[in-house]
């Protein structure tokens, strides 16, 4: 279904704003350019915050979905 290769996973469930974005920003520096981080979170604010963060930092939002209260998203490091 989803052919993206994931290089690192992050569990951000239970964390409140702005900590999921902070953790994601820290984690992106630990992977190489071109690699992908997949994360799960529960705070719905992430649905708007992560796309905004990707836009300003120039990273690629590969996908973001929500199912049964869990948001999962994948971000590719571009720079």
């Amino acid at each position: 279904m989803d052919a993206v290769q994931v290089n690192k996973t992050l569990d951000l469930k239970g964390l409140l704003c702005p900590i999921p974005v902070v953790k994601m920003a820290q984690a992106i520096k630990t992977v190489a350019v071109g690699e992908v981080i997949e994360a799960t979170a529960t705070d719905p604010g992430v649905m708007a915050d992560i796309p905004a963060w990707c836009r300003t930092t120039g990273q690629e939002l590969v996908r973001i979905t929500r199912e049964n209260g869990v948001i999962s998203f994948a971000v590719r490091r571009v720079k």
Partner: protein
Amino acid sequence: MSETVRTETINTALGALERVLDRRLVAALEVCARCGICAEACHVYASDPRPEHVPAARAERVRAVYRRQHDPLGKLFPWLVGAKDLTEPDLDALAEPAFASCTLCRRCTINCPFGVDTALIMRAARAMLTATDRAPEMLVMLADAAIARGEHAEEFREIYREIVAGLEHEAQERLGDPTLRIPLDQQGAEILYVGLSGAHTILPAAIIFHEANASWTLSMFEASNYGLFLGDPARAKAIARRIVDEAVRLGVKEVVLTECGHAYAALRWEAPNWFGGEFPFKVRSIVEVLADYVRDGRLALDPTANPEPVTYHDSCNLARNGGLIEAPRIVLRAAVQNFVEMNPHGKENFCCGGGGGLVAIPEWFETRMRAGRKKAEQIRAAGAPVVATSCENCNLQLTDLNGYYDLNVQVVGLMELVVNALLKARRRHAVPLPEAA
């Protein structure tokens, strides 16, 4: 590094200082008797008594530069008045005192015999550091992401509607009332409520507004303003503008900000200066609104829902700087059974140690835990198992202090306590439905 680059950087920093140099800042920079009274007033010094943690000492780094630029003696005989040319190493060394060991809490100011506003000086230092790319990356990123969300509001509108629909359902279930609504973009509503990105700031507010029968609508944006922490009026204004424009478009009578100290300080006290005038709406904290609802009998609360002793941590921005001291106590006395004051409290309360944006900067975790020692001692001495607060920053910091210092308390927001009391009162008053014939 070449001489030209050095000069450009220094000029940029000095330019940033000049831009924020108003009468208040000049007064703060020119007056200091070096009496040292501010030392013990500062939670950072009180928690970790080192000379560099004395407020006057951290302000002196900027004062020396100011004297070199503006004091007639400082221009001619810098050594005589402790004036100093700004250098790049000085700028580098300013980052820690300005961003990590001053939370802009202003406890030193109210304890200084001359009212010297060290926080204002540190904000000017932050402006110089931000202008020369020396601000913590995380604060810059969070500020820019907030601005991006405003610039692409249309793209986010549908995502947000989806989020709000989910939250509305959750709030209905929690209250047991399918008529509860979370209005979005409601033209002519009286209140524009601005939460944070987190659902925890929207759910309890929705229940409270529903029960108080308020005319309200939820903002598309979040209340926090990281531009304020950066000391960058341009970014701070861009972040505030999203809310100001939304409030004007919807024609609301007031903007009510969620439990967030710096958001309140930004929109209530600072924004009118950034925009050059008053707004056509009031700005209040949810804490003030809750106090009104309690006073007016618009919320039925059963304090037995919160039976354990509760103490309250006053946020620096709400209490000391915003004057909201009685309002949270009106709410607490109605929502909990046993309210215990922390000592000192109100405008003399010690900062939690996580203000000024510090909770969002992972690399300074140890620094803020050390600076929170005084707060941890205060909480322990209060002896209450529940610590309430009405600021998100404080909530995050107190939760971290709880683990770090083994305080064994529960940290809760004021709205949560109100919702507990409200749900219990509602259950007690609920009239059972007649059984089907």
